[in-house]
């Protein structure tokens, strides 16, 4: 049977810019329901009195931010953008990257979001939070899926990748992840969400780890039972570290551990751990 031909659809850059702008403002001011729910569950199960107070403040802060239309966190992040471009979508009225950058620029200016991007050497601020970090995938269809993910520097700084030897196996991976979270302690604003990327190459493991952070909090890996099991084990080991909310000690150090995997070279076992603070922000829209 002949494959159904898809109708080529035009998508205007103006719409891309407007969507990116809207998503970054929304992501920075409205915490996802899944995260708020995870914080509420954490509050119910936390045994430390200080930990409970910290979690209460986090929930109260999310309410204030939403009501006042203020950023949940002053670190409104690097603008990470995941784009899935349908191969039958025809982008018109400009080029995709410029349209995305313009959306970021407008969001950070008009949304009163902090500009946190600078030259690595001079540390001079670029003053409009660009360049954005843009990951583009070509997929089936004629639509465009845009995911806006403001990523804070504090938790990103505690993230890491390592090329393990194949002999290290899943035990080696778990040891690496737990060590990184233990070392991070109070720094990345716990309770954290941990994205783990296994396999691929150095860069692919890092991208997998970041994509793992996009999964709704509380949802386990549905594709591979081995990974769902690893998530469960890591979640327990990390919460046993005692870091607690705000790093002030307690039962809840992580809200979730999400693991993704792909095949790798016969010589390698790449692993990346991307740490996300409790202000886990991402919003998406398909246009």
């Amino acid at each position, binding site marked *: 049977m002949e494959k159904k031909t898809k109708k080529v659809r035009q998508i205007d850059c103006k719409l891309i810019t407007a969507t990116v702008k809207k998503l970054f403002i929304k992501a920075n001011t409205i915490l996802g329901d899944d995260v708020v729910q995870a914080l509420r569950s954490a509050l119910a199960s936390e045994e*430390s*009195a*200080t930990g409970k107070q*910290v979690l209460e*403040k*986090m929930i*109260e*802060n999310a309410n*204030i*931010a939403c009501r*006042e*239309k*203020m*950023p*949940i*966190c*002053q*670190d*409104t992040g690097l603008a990470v953008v995941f784009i899935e471009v349908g191969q039958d979508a025809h982008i018109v009225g400009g080029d995709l990257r410029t349209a995305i950058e313009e959306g970021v620029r407008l969001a950070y200016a008009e949304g*009163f*979001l*902090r*500009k*946190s991007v600078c030259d690595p050497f001079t*540390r001079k*601020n670029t*003053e409009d939070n660009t360049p954005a970090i843009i990951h583009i995938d070509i997929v089936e269809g004629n639509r465009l899926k845009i995911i806006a993910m403001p990523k*804070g*520097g*504090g938790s990103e*700084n505690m993230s890491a990748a390592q090329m393990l030897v194949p002999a290290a196996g899943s035990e080696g991976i778990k040891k690496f992840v737990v060590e990184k979270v233990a070392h991070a*302690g*109070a*720094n*990345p*604003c716990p309770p954290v969400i941990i994205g783990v990327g296994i396999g691929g190459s150095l860069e692919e493991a890092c991208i997998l780890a970041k994509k793992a952070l996009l999964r709704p909090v509380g949802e386990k890996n549905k594709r591979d039972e081995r990974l769902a099991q690893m998530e469960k084990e890591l979640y327990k*080991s990390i919460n*046993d*570290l*005692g*870091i*607690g909310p*705000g*790093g*002030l*000690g*307690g*039962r809840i150090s992580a809200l979730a551990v999400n693991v993704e995997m792909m095949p790798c070279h016969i010589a390698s076992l790449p692993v990346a751990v991307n740490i996300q*603070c*409790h*202000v886990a922000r991402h919003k998406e829209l398909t246009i």
Partner: protein
Amino acid sequence: MGIPRKIHTPLTNEVIVSLHAGDMVLLNGEVYTARDVAHRRLYEALIKGETLPIDLSKAVIFYAAPAPTPPGKVIGSIGPTTSYRMDFFTPKLIENGLKGMIGKGNRSEEVVQAIKKHGAVYFGAIGGIAALTAQCVKKVELIAYEDLGPEAIRKLTIVDFPAIVINDAEGNDLYDQAQKKWRINH
């Protein structure tokens, strides 16, 4: 734990020695924002013997850079950044009179020792609750390094800003103590 104690800046030596790791406090008075680049500049000014834009001996430094101020607000969202990045510069600042710091996360051994030797205190604030903490800021004044944008030094007047003593002048470390207490060893 218990009822938080109200503390006023500038911090006196009497107040500093009375603070212990784990004490909940509500900070009141003036504090100065300064983080990465501002620290480098303060440090370099000290090395060169130049006059600093702030009087360190009366200062409490808040490792923070706020979001822009929306219309009708005193300040945009503001909260602590991770403190360890300032560790290289901090002992020099403490030697030159700095008494208090507000941030989040662990300090280096050098900073902990400087806090102990010179009688200072490191307060932890909760990260990621910046819309809430912005409500404690009643006044903002730009002091120095305007070119750094959000990273400029600003004088904030704060009222009942919630914090917790992490490192006290006796050398105690709350993060270390609290996390050990809750750790489950395998």
